[in-house]
């Protein structure tokens, strides 16, 4: 047995292994959308309070990621995509991940309450609960709609950012939620299509497993179309403007075209080119959120917002 193997089995995790538990890539989406939710809100926030709030929202998101990895360690060990995560790779013990996740959850909620307001803190606590209990524990292994309902957890951060500034909820923050909520299913189903049998082997009832790949392709296209009214409503809302409207029109056209290409393909064609289109749509879907929310921020900074929402 080599020294490295012996060290891994003792569970001596490095600092980077604990950082990996926070799902840094997911955290970047949480940070960016929460930041935009905060800066487009009509109430100014002191930069230090804003910075601290975004940091605590990110920590809360990371904590829910750690708790998700603790709960899903058994299926993470089966799926190729997740085998290298800290728990299945033996770098972090499950109990350590659980303690780390719970401690960070408590710290992030308490600190957000003290830094900003207790409504935002309660919203963060609910988001952590939703992601860990409703999505990870309850829905993920129960229904192919896991991604649809569970996607709400990833859609809450801009609402929390808005709540940090305003202390409440509004139609604009609900529209930011709706855009991410409707975007999540085609994003994950595009991933599920080129992950092939990963979810099936792990026993996770993804749509590709329960309804087949043809149905999943149709669902991707349907959701890219269903996303249009919500993203247009956001672009025409009081926090939208010329930049957001232009970006929204272009992004939706590309996304629907990608969905149509996925729907139009059969498995043999996809296998032949190693799921090129599915991978392209998945990568583009990441840009979709960043560019949409970036446009909202740009409209505010450039002063190109509508004087009032188009729909009143």
């Amino acid at each position, binding site marked *: 047995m080599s020294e490295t193997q012996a060290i891994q089995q003792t569970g*001596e995790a490095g600092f980077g292994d604990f950082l990996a538990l926070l799902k840094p890539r997911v955290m970047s989406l949480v940070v960016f959308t929460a930041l935009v939710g905060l800066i487009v809100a009509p109430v100014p926030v002191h930069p230090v309070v804003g910075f601290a709030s975004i940091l605590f929202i990110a920590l809360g998101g990371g904590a829910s990621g750690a708790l998700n990895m603790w709960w899903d360690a058994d299926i993470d060990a089966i799926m190729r995509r997740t085998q290298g995560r800290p728990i299945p790779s033996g770098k972090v013990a499950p109990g350590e991940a659980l303690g780390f996740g719970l401690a960070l959850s408590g710290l992030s909620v308490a600190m957000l309450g003290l830094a900003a307001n207790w409504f935002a803190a309660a919203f963060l606590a609910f988001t952590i609960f939703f992601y860990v209990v409703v999505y990870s524990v309850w829905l993920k292994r129960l229904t192919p709609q896991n991604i649809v309902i569970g996607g709400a957890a990833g859609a809450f951060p801009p609402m929390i950012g808005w709540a940090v500034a305003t202390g409440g909820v509004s139609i604009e923050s609900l529209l930011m939620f709706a855009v991410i909520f409707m975007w999540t299913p085609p994003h994950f189903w595009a991933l599920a299509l080129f992950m092939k049998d990963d979810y099936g082997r792990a026993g996770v009832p993804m749509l590709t497993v329960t309804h087949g790949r043809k149905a999943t392709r149709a669902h991707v296209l349907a959701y890219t179309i269903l996303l249009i009214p919500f993203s247009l409503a956001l672009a025409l809302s009081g926090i939208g403007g010329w930049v957001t409207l232009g970006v929204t029109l272009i992004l939706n056209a590309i996304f629907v075209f990608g969905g149509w290409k996925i729907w139009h393909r059969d498995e043999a064609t996809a296998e032949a080119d190693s799921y090129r289109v599915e991978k392209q749509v998945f990568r583009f879907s990441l840009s979709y959120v960043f560019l949409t929310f970036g446009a909202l921020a740009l409209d505010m900074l450039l002063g190109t917002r509508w004087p009032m929402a188009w729909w009143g």
Partner: protein
Amino acid sequence: MVGLIVAHFPKPHELHQRRFGRNLGLGLSLAAFVALVFALTVVKVTGGDPMAAMSGQTQGVTGPIKGAQP
């Protein structure tokens, strides 16, 4: 001379390197947390006006405290 020192201080075991990295990361995180809480406290107490902190003024205290002796 250098060779003698190296001989007396061999390369630490990977286990200790990992522990050092983790402790250093934790230490820096805690230091950053303390700095952030301090900055938040200053902002909350002064209402975002750092000069108020320098001059000893605090937000919300506009008159003598009730019940205090003159």
